[in-house]
Every structure is written in structure tokens, then in C-alpha cells.
């Protein structure tokens, strides 16, 4: 069964281009992305009937945010490898809350290379 990577970012372009790149680099990977302003709630809705092995999540999404999605992912698959890709700085309240929930969480500051994301997810060479 192919593994799945979930990409959630309320910036359409970011989500779209990451989807394309991961699809090219890892053709065996099932790439799912959400990218509207309500991307968070759409992702949580999707997770009700699906699980994911990897995830790249934006932190600051209106409504259902990255932390909410993270909790939903972990409830189904506690082995999922998740990274947060964010424009927020370290002092941001949302980052603090995230670290309070899980101090080992991987947070990558935008702008980051694909190589950095791949490495953090442990996906291995394409």
C-alpha cells in the first residue's frame, strides 16, 4: 500500500508546488494537499476517513490550525512523521502552544529547501 503525505498550507501556491515536487520526486507516494483558507478544516475532515504517514503543515491557518491537524493525525497514526513549515517566528504564541503540546516537534521556518523538508521527514533520497 503506498504511503501518503499530507500537505496543508493556506497559501495556494505553496501547497500546490510542494504537491507537484513531491509527486515528481516520489512517484510512489500518495500526495494529498489542501490549500484554501479553510484548508485546516478540510484536512481534518479528510483525516476522518484517511490516515497519513507524513505531513507538512502550516502553523497559522484560520480556524482549524496546524496544531489541530497534528492532534488529529496523531490520534490515528502516532508514528506519522510531521513537520511544521511556518512563517511565524520563535516567539509567536502559536509556536509556543505547539511546543507546549509536543516539545520534540520539528518546526521549519519558511523559506526552506525541499532537501531540508525531505531530510526532516526522513523520506530518503528520491
Amino acid at each position, binding site marked *: 500500500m503506498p504511503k501518503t503525505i499530507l500537505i496543508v*498550507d*493556506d*497559501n495556494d*501556491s*505553496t501547497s*500546490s*508546488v*510542494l504537491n*507537484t*515536487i513531491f509527486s*515528481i*520526486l516520489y512517484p510512489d507516494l500518495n500526495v494529498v494537499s489542501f490549500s484554501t483558507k479553510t484548508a485546516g478544516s478540510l484536512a481534518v475532515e479528510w483525516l476522518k476517513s484517511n490516515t497519513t504517514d507524513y505531513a507538512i503543515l*502550516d502553523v*497559522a491557518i484560520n480556524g482549524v490550525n496546524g496544531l489541530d491537524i497534528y492532534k488529529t493525525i496523531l490520534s490515528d497514526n502516532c508514528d506519522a512523521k510531521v513537520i511544521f*513549515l511556518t*512563517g*511565524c*517566528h*520563535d*516567539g509567536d504564541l502559536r509556536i*509556543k502552544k505547539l511546543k507546549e503540546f509536543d516539545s520534540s516537534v520539528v518546526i521549519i*521556518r*519558511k*523559506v*526552506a*529547501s*525541499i532537501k531540508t523538508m525531505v531530510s526532516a521527514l526522513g523520506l530518503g533520497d528520491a
Partner: protein
Amino acid sequence: MLNHSLNEIPIQIIYFDNKLDSKIIFSSVNFLNISANCDSFILGMCKDDICTKVSTEKCVAKSVLDTGFMIESSHIFTEPLTGIIRTVRRFGFPSFDGGCYEIRIETKDPDVAKNTIIEKNMQDNFRLIASGINHEVRSPLQALYAYLEMLEILHNDKNDIFVSMRLELEKIVGILDSLGKFNRNDKSVSEYDVFSKIIEDTWKTVYITLLPSHPIVLDLDFIVDDFGDIVANIPKAELQQIFTNILRNSVEALNKKRSEISVKLVSKNEEFFSFLVRDNGSGIPNQILTDIFIPFVTSKNGMGLGLTICRYFILSRGGTIFVLSEEDEFTEIIISLPIRNGG
């Protein structure tokens, strides 16, 4: 940290005339009329272009070496000002036959005090805008960066165009990183350290970072006074950032065979200490000296945010910063910081 009551403002005056002893009388220049041994004074701005500048725009730091005076103020004086002297604190600096006074006054003019508050609000607003821009721009930039990576993958090629695009994008990220420095890292604001250790550690980092591009640091004399056990009342991370910016500027300005950067203690009392960072480099061009703390003003290839960040951190912690410079001769950054209790 200084807490100014509504009508109390600090004014700093640097003068270069050692004839002035117990009395501070500047009446001879018709720029400032003040006497330290009386309890009131009149401050007037009425001379040449200095007055015009001071009275028409926010005056951050003015170097007026030709007249022998410099005044630092975040206030706009359009009329002569009358007030009561609260404290007079003297600190000299060794490179001139003169000294520096901080005169804290209680003005009867609430508008002046209001300007102090406006200045603070402007700083806070700038920080908020910088933070907002930083966050919002990173997302589309991330997309651009990823698109570029995709092109590189598809073309399996790192041609010059891709390299140039990547460099330009990284410059934008650099600007955002600089703007991000206006946001204090909450985790680090409670960490303080001995002043001299912070200088040493920061210099090591700056040295290593700049060595490849500025081999002049190999022959550089870096001289630091003994600051004893002084602990400045400013978080370590902010002080490191201040020194990084200042020392980088100094190194980048060096152009002489016998290059030197020195950090000298100017004065110290129970509440404050003052020091200067001097380099004998190319100096700051006169045309930008008066605007040197304004964001994006620079004579180099950098972002022009370094000294703006320094000033922001220093003023927000109750300190002051001045710049003196003479082209092809030297630059001096004179900083006064509050001392941390027990430090």
C-alpha cells in the same frame, strides 16, 4: 530601565569644549542656553541648518563637528523650551577634549513628553509592521523558492539563471531575517551575562564569519577595556545582536594597514555605564550620517537595518546611542546602558 514620568524627558548633549567645568553654559553658540547650577533653563533651536533639521524632523543623532556640538533627541523642538533640571550626569569620552552630559529635565510642556510617547508608539508600530510583513511574505516566497527548485529538478541543471534567481531570493530572505530581529525572542529575554564576556563571544563569532570575505581581520588590533563585572540591563541576545551589527560595520569599513577596533569604557556610576566602539576605518559619509538610524539607509551593500535594530533595542531598554564619524578617519558609536542590579 528608565521610566519617564509624563513630563520628564532625557536630553543628551555632547560637547567638545573642555573649558566648561562646573557650569554647563552653551549660551555662546545661541543653540542651547543652559546652566547646570540653576534649576531652570531655556532650550532654544535657532541656528543654521542644525536648527532646521532638529525642528523639522525627528532628530535621531546629529553630528555637527563643525560647530562642536551634537545633540541627540527623539523630540521635535519647534519653540524654545523651559523646564526644571532633574539630574545632570556627566560622562566624558577620551577621543575628544570634551565630554558628554545627560540632562534629565522636567518640562512644563506636555507636548514634548507626548512626543516621547509618540516615538515609542512609532517603534512599536514599526515592530508590528515588520513582524506582519515577515510572516506574510514568507509564504509566497516559499512557493517561489520551491518553484525554482522544481525547475532545477525538471531541467536537471544548475545554470546561471537558476543560480542568480536563487541568490536574489536568498537576499529577500536575508531582508526578512533582518526585519525578524526586531522581534524579541521571548525565551532569551530573561538571559543576561557579563558585558565583557558578551563582547568577547560576539567578536569571536564576527571574526569567524567575516574572515573569509575580510582577511583584514587577521592583522586587526581588537582592543577591549576591562569592564569588570558589569552586567548591562539588556538581555544577552539583544546585546549580542547590537555588537554583531556594530562590529560587522566596523570590520567592513576597515581599509588601513594598521586597522584597529576598540571598545572603551567611558564612564560608570551606579545606574549607567557608557562605552564607545571605535574603528579607524573609512567612516560614514556625511550625507547619510544624520539618517544613519533610519531603516534601509546605508552606504554599503547591506540592508541598512543594522543600526536601526541597535537603536531600537538600546532605546527600548532605557539606553542611548550616538554616532560620530569623519570620513576616511574613524567612526565612534557611543552607547549608554543601564546597569543590571547586582551587576
